[in-house]
């Protein structure tokens, strides 16, 4: 593939581009699902294509294609150059990339069992078995079990001399029961909502998830939620667990710390950020307990790779350190705007057909020092919420509202009544400053976001957010329509 890539790099050099790169990507994706006793999805997909980025006269041009011929590589590279020239007439400052050494390297996701080598029949047998258990109560009107496996083989070549080959692998699975009765609908999922758990691993993840062992509980909880009391309203201590805390991190810290957004480059679409650059190193984002670490080297993380799509080597850095805003998600274009001479390396593209943009890396809330059981024991009047059901946050990432699948009231240190439709609202810095306890590393685990949308044209990215359950004091609970 590098001999194909060479054509684009040569044209970029010949035309005196300040920078040029080509990414050739072959993606295999297998999706399987069983819904209501039938195959819902069974798809094996392979795509191959390339995208060329040219920086010319201080402006970017990008073009891509799935026609893998030398002539097409030439056409696409010249188109990217032509687009860059069109954009250069309207620039106020020339794009300058933060320096990075050139690398010649191969990197791949560690795994034990290649999921594509596992027979489809075995996967479907497990999904049918799980789904059958979910469906055993007539109130469960929709039951789904699903798996997805993705292998992305990348060849990245730059005019700076980098030649990076990477093979990124992810596996995911989950199940969802939807119970319906008397004007009420309730969902319960395992291990998490929005498709389940996905990690950068092989089929060993599926074996470790114990989907079948959890299916009965999922069904029973979905049905129990139908008749559970509604989540009470008021200000209560909130303990967040499961992928809900991942969503909280993602929406109120992850996106807020994307430097392109902070600088206004997403204003017209997804919005900007309150975490502006003059606050770096000073702003109290959360309580001193709060440490949020971006980490492209995190084992199992969905944003874990050897290099990002700017050809920057994977790094680990604080976004929030001891409660203070301490870093951003960066690419090479914008890193210089905050006085850095190197990008933290969080620039990624969705497949071959999209230009790399600043993305949330794996971003984790680091564990505290208290066992989870003690955290509950220490809570007088609170509520535990688990697994995200709905999410919404304003265009500066301040006012948010989340809904969860299930809540449990905590009274005098004991987890008691199951409640339905739990929701909470808050304002980002006040919320993170109300964090007064984080469970220890025994309950610290990774959760996945597989559908993070950003940019125009829209791009999807995956990342992980690890956390232990955490407690937030006096949060507005139970929002009514």
């Amino acid at each position, binding site marked *: 593939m590098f001999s194909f890539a060479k054509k684009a790099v040569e044209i970029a050099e010949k035309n005196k581009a300040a920078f040029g790169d080509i990414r050739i990507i072959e993606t295999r994706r297998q999706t399987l*699902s069983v*819904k209501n006793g039938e*195959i*819902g*999805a*069974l*798809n*094996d*997909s*392979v*795509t*191959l294509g390339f995208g060329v980025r040219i920086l010319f006269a201080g*402006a*970017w*041009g*990008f*073009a*891509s*294609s*799935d*026609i*893998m011929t030398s002539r097409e590589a030439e056409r696409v590279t010249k188109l990217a150059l032509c*687009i*860059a020239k069109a*954009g250069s*007439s*309207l620039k*106020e*400052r020339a794009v300058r990339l933060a320096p990075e050494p050139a690398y010649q390297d191969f990197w791949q996701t560690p795994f034990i069992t290649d999921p594509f080598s596992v027979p*489809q029949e075995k996967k479907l047998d497990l999904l049918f078995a799980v789904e059958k258990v979910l469906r055993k109560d007539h109130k469960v009107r929709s039951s789904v079990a699903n798996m997805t496996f993705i292998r992305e083989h990348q060849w990245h070549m730059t005019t700076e001399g980098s030649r990076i080959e990477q093979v990124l692998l992810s596996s995911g699975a989950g199940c969802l029961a*939807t119970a*319906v009765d008397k*004007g*009420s*609908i309730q969902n319960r999922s395992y291990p998490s909502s929005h498709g389940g758990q996905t990690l950068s691993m092989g089929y060993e993840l599926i074996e470790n998830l114990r989907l079948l062992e959890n299916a009965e509980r999922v069904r029973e909880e979905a049905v129990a939620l139908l008749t559970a009391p509604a989540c009470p309203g008021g200000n209560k201590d909130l303990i967040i667990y499961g992928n809900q805390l991942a969503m909280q991190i993602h929406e109120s810290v992850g996106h807020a710390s994307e430097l392109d957004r902070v*600088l*206004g*480059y997403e*204003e*017209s*679409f997804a919005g900007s950020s*309150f975490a502006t650059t003059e606050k770096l190193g000073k702003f109290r984002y959360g309580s001193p307990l709060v440490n949020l670490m971006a980490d492209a080297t995190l084992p199992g993380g969905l944003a874990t790779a050897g290099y990002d799509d700017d050809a920057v080597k994977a790094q680990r850095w604080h976004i929030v350190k001891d409660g203070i805003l301490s870093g951003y998600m960066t690419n090479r274009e914008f890193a210089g705007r905050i006085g850095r001479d190197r990008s933290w390396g969080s620039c990624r593209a969705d497949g071959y057909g*999209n*230009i790399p943009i600043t993305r949330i890396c794996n971003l984790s809330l680091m564990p505290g020092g208290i066992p989870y059981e003690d955290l509950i024991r220490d809570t007088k009047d609170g509520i535990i919420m688990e697994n995200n059901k709905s999410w*919404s946050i*304003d*265009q*500066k990432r*301040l*006012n948010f509202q989340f*809904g969860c699948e299930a809540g449990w009231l905590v009274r005098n240190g004991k987890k008691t009544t199951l409640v339905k*439709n739990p*929701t909470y*609202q808050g*304002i980002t810095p006040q919320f993170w400053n109300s964090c007064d306890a984080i469970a220890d590393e025994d309950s610290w685990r990774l959760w996945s976001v597989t559908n993070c949308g950003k940019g125009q*044209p829209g791009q999807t990215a995956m990342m992980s957010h690890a956390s232990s359950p955490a407690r937030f004091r006096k949060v*507005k609970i139970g*929002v*009514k*329509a």
Partner: protein
Amino acid sequence: MQNHKTICERIMRLAGRIRAEAIITSVNSSLTRFADNVISQNVSNASTEISVRVLENGRVTRFSLNQPSESALKTAFAAALAALRTQKKDPRLMPLPEPGPSIESTKLYFHGTAAMPPKDRAARVAAVIKKCRKAGAVAYGAYETGSTAVTVANSLGVRAFHKESSAVYSVTVRDKDGFGWAEAPAFDAGEIDFDRLDRTAMEKARLSRAPRSIKPGPYTVILEPAAAADLLFYLGFYGFGAQFYQEGQSFVSGKLGRKVMSPEITLEDDALGGLSAGMPFDYEGLPRQKVTLIESGVARAVAHDRKTAARAGTRTTGHALPPPNTYGPVPINLSLAKGSVSLKEMIRNTERGILVTNFHYTNLLKPLTVEITGMTRNGTFMIKNGRIAYPVRNMRFTESAVEAFNRIEAVGDKQEAFIQWGRVAAPALKIRGFNFSSSTEF
């Protein structure tokens, strides 16, 4: 763009006696994005996806790829057939649909829009940046042009082809701490009134400077068409898909023929004409029908594909979505019938209320009442005594769309089209008692 006919013939030849259904989608998309009064991103993408469903003796599988060569397709077919033969039979598997007349739809395709060069988009963007610089304001937005072609074909002879061009111009203007926005899609870029959109966004930004905080709570609202379209999308998706209906997950489940909304509301799914027009067939290659979902407040019908139609003992309305999906058929060309009141009159007739330009980051809370939350964005104003009194800081709403559409006071006299997941054509709406649950800091 790859030649769909050639690819189809290759697929059907390779399938031989095995039943096959092919969906081929080619997209050419070019987008010029601007921010901070400069072009910030300039891209072009061409791609083709070939998705093939293979059926044999009660078994089914699907493969997809983007390389249409004989060898790539042969390899994919071989793997699919091997996978197919290890499966258990599914007695409920439906056979492929029988063909009707072939469909060839090209009337929404305009070559000048599909093949617009980057310099033309840059010139358009330069125009709005120039205006904003002159006014001391800042422009953000995107101008996207391109085309999409879809072919659906099967071994039994179904052949349907659709090609459309598209242009979407979206502009956000910041004037100090005020924001304004305007957007329009068109199949023919020549139909977009760019200057009007620029003026609207700039004027809203100027008027929304120095917004005041107000207390959240129930207010009469006037939703401009973009905000109304956002709510309609949720109503259409969660309310009028036959699978959700059959699973009891829709607010109209068991209520067809009954009043579910204000008599002011007539909602159709119409891919065949008007501002919601689009592909005239579905992803099984069957003709789309115009479906009246709500007629003067009474629930009339839901959107079907062949599977849900068979369960309901009726005929498909041609709403099958691209597989695989877990939603079943849903209406994606929604059109809310216009009323008789202009936006200006709505404002003039309002003693106290809030004018909402657009919503941001809306999301569903409860499907059965279509309870939604989201933020106001890009121009939210207090109306007092029939006039826009002052801009207000953005607020979060938490509201049941079903209940809100039972409190309609007026429907606007002009539809505008927006691209959601599909197309939504909506007029402005005036709704009383709309619930704002909290506010934000800007």
